């Protein structure tokens, strides 16, 4: 498939717009010859750009194949890329005002790998963009239906179980922003970055300004400062409100099958899709103002980058603001976590926070004293000490808003008073569990447990964290999370296996599912046994077979199931090993066949062929005389 033809002039103009600005200055600075030169350069550049874009257009080709999306592109260095549908995290479509006017749209496909957008199609017609979006979803669900686990349907819950059909599943609206809510989003959006920027700029201009007002009185200066700061806040508030308003204008979240779709934006329209099976975490945020009004925000995280934001501002494919109970109801549609009852850290930890805040106040007082001493102004430097009054309530609030809760399938954590975040992490999505104790935490005998996921905002360090819980409880939590992850993985595997291999023979699948536990335990022993077992192998290869390996070879039980050799272990390995290709040889010799090639290179190359012959002979003789020990082992198993 080709790009939209309008994209050629549009892309060319996009490229040269920067040069136009430069030329403008050239013209301004050199009125005599500037114009002619500028026109010539501009003409050349435009021609060059158009030429390049035509080549780009001709080279760019994308195709929706059976199970991958193929994109081949590149004028100078060519690139062919195949993205498997299953790996696509989200598909985002955006259209700016100009793009809407000329009828093109940009499509971005995110996968979990890499740091930038993996599939970027610039530009196609809006209809084509929608078609890609729908088609990717349809083929993905067809793909997973054919083989790779349909975990999503169960998770999506009510009504979403409908299989893919030609038309695509019906869209069900989950949330649409009301004008009142939109106004509220604007009112509660405060863009702090502008203040930082202006403060940075003005810090450079203060010496300049002070030279203009050499003899101004302190009162006038203070008044100006206050007005200035007030104005700054007002401006950044209005800017924040404007940005939020244009961003979230017409926000709409809906679900179609096992996929969430969103739309938003006034000038630049964004629309995108998030498969529910790709949701890594849910995040509720609120602040005291929102809590007082009974509102909260929700963001939905995948392992791809946050849609439309390039990972800078966190996911905005989320509900910007809505009544708290509505937000929770919506979130439960995506991840069915129960009714959380958070357990808080031990009360004594409030002393720690109080102590910490008191130290901060102490530092402020000391800084004020230093300034006062340096200026000799006789100011009341002890004034910041008044903040000590606020320390106990602050410590209490900090404690009060911390907590975690272990649901049936989810871990919920809660942190922060000014910007309170509740994070919902399904156990299945946990990647690592990290237990940290700083030197101060150890003094209070507490620890922090972090459940790391592949979610995008984890990159910014906003993981689900249970902070400052008693060490014993933290260790329990850590082990519980590990255990529940194991169970969740086993459940997923069970479901997948049932689908892939047992097709209806649920009884057998159940048996396997139960046995995964035993197998899981056995990995440790396998690790142990190979420590000893790895050594003899090179020897055995060089000298033919030693007695030890002879025994290994001979243990082919009557039932034909070759079991790994767990010599030196007291465990009961009577459960049949799962999914091990039992060929001629005992499976535990080189448990991963992939690595056989490497082993050949490890310096045993010279004798390989001879060895192989020897092996065969040995194996034969083993089978001839090896029945007895094998039978013994079998008896012992039973």
């Amino acid at each position: 498939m080709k790009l939209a033809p309008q994209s050629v002039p549009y892309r060319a103009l996009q490229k040269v717009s920067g040069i136009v600005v430069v030329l403008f200055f050239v013209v301004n600075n050199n009125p005599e010859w500037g114009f002619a030169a500028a026109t010539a350069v501009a003409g050349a550049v435009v021609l060059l750009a158009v030429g390049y874009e035509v080549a780009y257009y001709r080279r760019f080709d994308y195709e929706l194949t059976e199970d991958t999306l193929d994109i081949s592109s590149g004028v100078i260095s060519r690139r062919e890329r195949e993205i498997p549908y299953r790996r696509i995290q989200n598909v985002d479509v955006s259209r700016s005002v100009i793009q809407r006017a000329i009828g093109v749209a940009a499509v971005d496909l995110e996968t979990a790998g890499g740091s930038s957008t993996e599939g970027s199609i610039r530009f196609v017609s809006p209809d084509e963009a929608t078609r890609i979006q729908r088609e990717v979803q349809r083929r993905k669900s067809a793909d997973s239906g054919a083989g790779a686990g349909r975990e999503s349907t169960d998770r999506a819950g009510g009504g979403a179980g409908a299989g893919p059909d030609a038309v695509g599943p019906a869209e069900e609206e989950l949330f649409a922003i009301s004008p009142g809510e939109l106004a509220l989003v604007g009112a509660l959006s405060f863009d702090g970055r502008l203040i930082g920027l202006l403060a940075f700029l003005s810090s450079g201009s203060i010496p300049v300004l002070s030279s203009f007002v050499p003899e101004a009185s302190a009162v006038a200066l203070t008044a100006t400062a206050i007005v200035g700061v007030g104005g700054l806040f007002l401006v950044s508030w209005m800017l924040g409100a404007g940005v939020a308003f244009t961003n979230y204008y017409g926000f709409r979240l809906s679900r179609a099958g096992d996929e969430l779709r969103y739309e938003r934006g006034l000038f630049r329209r964004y629309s995108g899709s998030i498969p529910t099976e790709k949701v890594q975490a849910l995040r509720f945020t609120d602040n005291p103002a929102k809590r007082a009004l009974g509102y909260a925000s929700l963001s939905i995280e995948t392992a791809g980058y946050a849609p439309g934001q390039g990972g800078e501002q966190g996911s905005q494919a989320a509900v910007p603001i809505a009544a708290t109970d509505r937000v929770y109801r919506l979130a439960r549609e995506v991840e069915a976590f129960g009714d959380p009852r958070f357990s808080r850290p031990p009360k004594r930890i409030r002393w720690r926070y109080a102590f910490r805040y008191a130290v901060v106040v102490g530092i402020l007082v000391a800084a004020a004293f230093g300034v006062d001493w340096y200026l000799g102004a006789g100011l009341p430097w002890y004034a910041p000490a008044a903040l000590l009054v606020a320390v106990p309530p602050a410590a209490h609030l900090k404690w009060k808003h911390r907590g975690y809760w272990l649901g049936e399938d989810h871990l919920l954590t809660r942190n922060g008073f000014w910007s309170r975040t509740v994070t919902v992490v399904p156990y299945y999505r946990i990647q690592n569990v990290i237990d940290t104790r700083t030197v101060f935490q150890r003094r209070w005998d507490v620890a922090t447990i972090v459940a790391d996921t592949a979610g995008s905002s984890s990159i910014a360090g906003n993981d689900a964290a249970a902070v400052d819980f008693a060490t014993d409880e933290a260790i329990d939590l850590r082990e519980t999370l590990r255990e529940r992850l194991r169970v969740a993985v086993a459940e997923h595997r069970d479901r997948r296996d049932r689908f892939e291999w047992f097709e209806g023979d649920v009884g057998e699948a159940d048996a396997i599912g139960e046995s995964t536990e035993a197998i899981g335990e056995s990995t440790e022993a396998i690790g142990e046994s190979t420590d000893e077992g790895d050594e003899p192998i090179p020897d055995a290869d060089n000298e033919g077979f030693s007695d030890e390996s002879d025994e290994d070879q001979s243990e082919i039980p009557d039932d034909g199931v070759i079991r790994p050799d767990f010599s030196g272990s007291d465990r009961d390995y009577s459960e049949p090993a799962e999914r091990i290709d039992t060929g001629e040889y005992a499976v535990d010799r080189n448990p991963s066949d992939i690595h056989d090639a490497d082993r050949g290179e490890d310096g045993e190359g010279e004798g390989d062929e001879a060895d192989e012959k020897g092996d065969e002979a040995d194996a034969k003789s083993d089978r001839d005389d090896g029945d007895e020990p094998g039978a013994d082992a079998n008896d012992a198993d039973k």
Partner: protein
Amino acid sequence: MTAQTLHPRVQVVWVLRAVLIAAVLTAPFAGAVYLDRLPEWTPVVAGAVFLLLGVGHALLRYRRWSYEIREDALYLDRGVVTQVRTTVPLVRIQHVDSRRGPVERGAGLASCVVYTAGSRGADVRIPGLTPDGASDLREELKRLAIRADGEDAV
């Protein structure tokens, strides 16, 4: 597998690094003395303090470091000032590297890096292994990860 400690020679690497850091941190003091801004004893004291802290930290770090492969997870226990215990479920291992930097090669050591899809623990690094130990550990983890038969959940 019981808890494993690192190879003792890694202390040499860490102590050398501490000495280097101490030297870098002491340099401004020495410069100040050269410009007659500080009395002569300051770089000596500062250097001694930095060296003591750095070497002490390096030695304690070695003592604290341990790792263990248990039935379904890799456990790491480390950190002097902030103690960190990381649990990496074997099902979540994406790939495993063994690597040898120039300093490590000089000391005859190697390290093993375990990657998961998680972003924070993206690289779990086990330093201070012998080269054979590092590749053995890599093989071991790879094998266990394959056996654990996980999904990456992304």
